Structures are given as structure tokens and as C-alpha cells.
């Protein structure tokens, strides 16, 4: 079975600016791939190249086994997309906007429009002009459009943008279900790293146009740094006691307590507690914490920069 997405040595230059630099990606059918990066990292350029909207300076892209471009050719009947801010024809109703998409995608089934409206809770707004929609509902319309033709591959740029918390959960569950139950491949860029963390089976981190790390859920678990966070009433005394016991101590950036990154401390917090009690600075809190994707991302980007 061919890859859902195959990117080979993709490079895109705009004059002197190198937007994407020798990017290679291989994404299997049914994967949910999270594509992370700061603003200007090259995520949207990559997505536009995947969709044949920009011509690579070198390298190439295949989707669902078919080469994309050079004249906008691609397996578009099987691909749904949402690029950056969702747009709609403002003077047309929500239904009319979707009806245009249905026809241009060549979907014969007239019921597809109504199903897409219901799936994204837009039934009540079907007759409203798209120009009057809230940001969240415009995002729903963009997602409805992307899914209207039941694609096998979804390429989504910031799918949770503008959605309220309930909408974020709804979209997460929908995308997860599509991947699990129908084998739909989801390629999504996002700034909401917690969302990517919950949904993606694999994550790629792009920085200055280069893929600096690619990891699956197990990798992420293994590579995310762990630390022992300690707090005491007398933090200065606790710090002195721990340093005297041979631990490397830093200040915990989030809670203001103390953080120990030594494996010795993480694997034997009881020893740490004993040293603190013996020094007359008993711990108020002692916890092994693991960085989340956001912290891992920032640490990696910081190191890369």
C-alpha cells in the first residue's frame, strides 16, 4: 500500500528566503500526524506544496500514491483540506457555500451537503449568509467543506482555530474517530500543542524550514524530560541540604520550588525526602513530573535556535 503522504527533499525558496529546506516525510494511511512549528517555520508553505498551491524549488510530493503538480494535478477527490483562515463567499448562505464545494468536488449525492451541515452543528445556520458567521462557525464551515466529500486524506492547517472549548473537543473526537474507524489519514498543523498531544500518533517538529525532530507517541513518552519537583517551607535550607547531598538543583520555572533532573533523584525520591528531613527542611511536596509536548517543543526549538 502506498504512503498517504510522501515528501521527498522538498525545498521552497522565495527569493533569498528559504521557507522549506530539504524536507522528507513519509506518512502511512490511517496516521494522525501533528506538524508543529513556530510562525514562519514553513508549516503553511509545506501544506500549500502538498496541495499543489506552490511549486517546489526542488523535490516533490505524492499524495495517496499520486504525484502532485506541476499544473495543480493531484488526487483531489480523495483529499480534504483547510488552509489557514477558512474563507467563504460572504453573500452566499452556508448551504450555498457547501453546495458549491459539493459540485466542484464532483459529489453526486445531494444529501452530502445536509450531512456536512449536521455533522458540524451548522443545521440552524444553513440559511444564514456566510458573511455574518462568527469566527468559530466559519471554522466549522471550513471543516464541513473539507470533509463533505468523505476524503481519505485530510490536510488541516490549525483546525481548532477560533473554536470554543466544546468545539475543540468535538473536532478532536471527530478526527480521532475518522482515523480509527475509517482509516482516514490526518495531517494537521497546530499551535495548540495539547490538542496535538492528545490526537496525533506521530509528531514532526519544523524549525526554520527543517524537520528537527520526528517522534511517535512512544518516542515522545521516552524523550520528554522528567524531573523531581521539591518544595519546602525553607527553600534555601532545602536547596543547601540537597546540594550537600550531591544533587544538582535548579529553580522550578513553573511553581517556584526546586527541580532535580538527576536520574538518582527521579528514581529514588525517598532518598531525597530522607536527606531533607535529616537537614531539618522536610518536604511539603515531592513529585516526579514529565514535561508535556509544549515544554518539549520549546526546549527543542530553544536548543535548535
Amino acid at each position, binding site marked *: 500500500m502506498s504512503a498517504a503522504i510522501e515528501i521527498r527533499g522538498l525545498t521552497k525558496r522565495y527569493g533569498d528566503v528559504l521557507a522549506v529546506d530539504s524536507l522528507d516525510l513519509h506518512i502511512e494511511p490511517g496516521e494522525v500526524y501533528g506538524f508543529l512549528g513556530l510562525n514562519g517555520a514553513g508549516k503553511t508553505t509545506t501544506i*500549500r506544496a502538498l496541495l499543489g*498551491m506552490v511549486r517546489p524549488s526542488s523535490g516533490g510530493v505524492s499524495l495517496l500514491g499520486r504525484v502532485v503538480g506541476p499544473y495543480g494535478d493531484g488526487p483531489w477527490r480523495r483529499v480534504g483540506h483547510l488552509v489557514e483562515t477558512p*474563507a467563504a463567499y460572504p*453573500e452566499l448562505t452556508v448551504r*450555498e457555500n457547501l453546495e458549491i464545494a459539493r459540485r*466542484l468536488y*464532483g459529489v453526486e449525492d445531494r444529501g452530502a451537503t445536509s450531512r456536512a451541515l449536521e455533522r458540524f452543528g451548522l443545521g440552524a445556520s444553513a440559511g444564514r449568509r456566510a458573511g455574518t458567521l462568527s469566527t468559530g462557525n466559519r471554522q466549522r464551515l471550513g471543516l464541513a467543506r473539507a470533509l463533505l466529500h468523505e476524503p481519505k486524506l485530510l490536510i488541516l492547517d490549525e483546525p481548532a482555530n477560533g473554536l470554543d472549548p466544546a468545539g475543540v473537543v468535538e473536532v478532536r473526537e471527530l478526527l480521532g474517530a475518522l482515523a480509527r474507524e475509517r482509516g482516514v489519514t490526518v495531517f494537521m498543523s497546530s499551535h495548540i500543542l495539547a490538542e496535538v498531544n492528545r490526537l496525533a500518533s506521530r509528531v514532526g517538529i519544523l524549525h526554520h524550514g527543517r524537520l528537527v525532530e520526528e517522534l511517535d507517541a512512544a518516542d515522545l513518552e521516552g524523550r520528554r524530560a522528567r524531573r523531581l519537583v521539591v518544595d519546602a517551607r525553607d527553600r534555601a535550607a532545602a536547596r543547601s541540604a540537597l546540594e550537600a547531598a550531591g544533587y544538582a538543583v535548579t529553580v522550578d520555572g513553573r511553581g517556584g520550588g526546586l527541580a532535580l533532573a538527576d536520574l538518582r533523584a527521579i528514581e529514588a525520591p525517598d532518598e531525597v525526602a530522607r536527606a531533607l528531613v535529616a537537614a531539618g527542611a522536610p518536604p511539603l511536596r515531592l513529585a516526579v513530573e514529565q514535561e508535556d509536548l509544549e515544554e518539549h517543543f520549546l526546549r527543542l526549538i530553544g536548543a535548535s535556535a
Partner: protein
Amino acid sequence: MRHGLAALWAESLKARRSKVPWLTALGFSLAPLMGGLFMVILKDPARARSMGLISAKAQLTAGVADWPTFLGVLAQATAVGGAMLFALVTAWVFGREFADGTVKDLLALPTPRATIVAAKFVVVAVWGTALAALVLALGLVVGAAVGLPGWSWALLVRATGDLAATACMTLALMPPVALLASIGRGYLAPVGWAILTVFLAQILAAIGWGSWFPWSVPPLFAGLAGPRSAQLGAHSYVVVAVTFAAGLASTFTWWQKADQSR
């Protein structure tokens, strides 16, 4: 064929739901109405003065109030007005995709980009033809209401042919407008271009180079500077055809190849 019909349906729906067709129809309706008013004044200047339609000081020395003159005025109005209003229509049909940010939804579809561009040109052509037909129809009503002399069916056939040819040539100059709306990603560049070409068409026609300048050809054909046989040659129609073909080819190529990075 299926894709073509889908694209045509989509483009016509966008046009039907817009206010722009009504505004252009309103703008084009002014031509026969103003022409009719002019005919009333020419027909009986003393009465027009007494009705307050013209100033007592106005000197009307040229022009005859009859059907041939009136129908000629309509063709000239189609040439000059069409250069602006057809350009506005074209700028809207193409430029709106960029102004509304919807162009990115037209690029990765089973319906080929060339089909979508072709559908847009068809809508511009139909829209322009409808506006020209409106000018003629309204002109006939106004002319009849004014009671102009000199009517004949042969005249109507000839005038309809002239007006249709003028409208066709004016529409043939729209592909460069579509190209500029695409490259400029909006309305400003094509509207600026339309104003510039109307201005240059007047200047070049005045200094005698109009037969070589495509944008001067439709108004000269309509008789704006006298009988067309004295103004235009075969080369004039060739430059219009070349402008049409080059503009069309460039617009299709741009949509196929240009980076859509915004």
C-alpha cells in the same frame, strides 16, 4: 463536461447573489436615458429651454434627433461605458476570489483550474452581453417614447449588429483585466488599468494612432470620431484579437502555474 457545468453553476450563483450585476445594469441604463434626454433637447431646443432641461445660454449646433443618430450614440456609449463597466465586472469575477480569500479553495479540486477560469470568462461574456442587450432594449423604448423620426427595420438590424460587434470587441479586451485582477490579487490593479486604457484610448485616437491601439478600436468602430472606414483598418481588428488571445493565454497560464502563497 460535468466539471464545466459545476464550475459554471458555481460562478453564476456567485454572480446572481451579488449586488454587482444590479449596479452595473443601473450604470449601463444611464446611457439610453441620457441619450434619450439629449434627443429630446435636440428635437426641440426652445421647448427644452422652457422646460428648464438646458440653460438659456446653451448652444446646440451639432446633432440630429433621429433614430440613426440615437442608435449610434448607444453603440458609442457601449464602447466607452463598456470599457469601464465590463472591466468592473471582470475585476469582480476574478478579483473577489483574492479579496475574499476563497482562491485557495479553488486550487486543489477535481474540477481543473482551467475549467474554473473558463467558467469565469463565460460569466463575464454573458454578463457583458446582457448589459449590451439592456442598452439596446432600453434605447428602443426611450427612442419610441421620444418619438424619433427615421425608423426602419433595416436600420435596427444594422444598429444591432454594430452594437453587438462593439460589445464583443470591448469584451475581447477583458482578459488582460482578468490577468491583472489575478496577479494584483484584488480589484485595485484591474480598475486602475481600465481607467488608464480609457484615458490612453482617447489620447491615441485624438493623435491619430487609435487604429493601432486595441482600446481605441471599439469606440472608433462605434463611430465616436466619424465613419469607421476612415478610422480603422484590418490591422485594428487584428490587434484586438491578439490582445484577446494573449490575455486569455496569460490568465490561464497564471492560474495553472503561479504560486498561491497568500
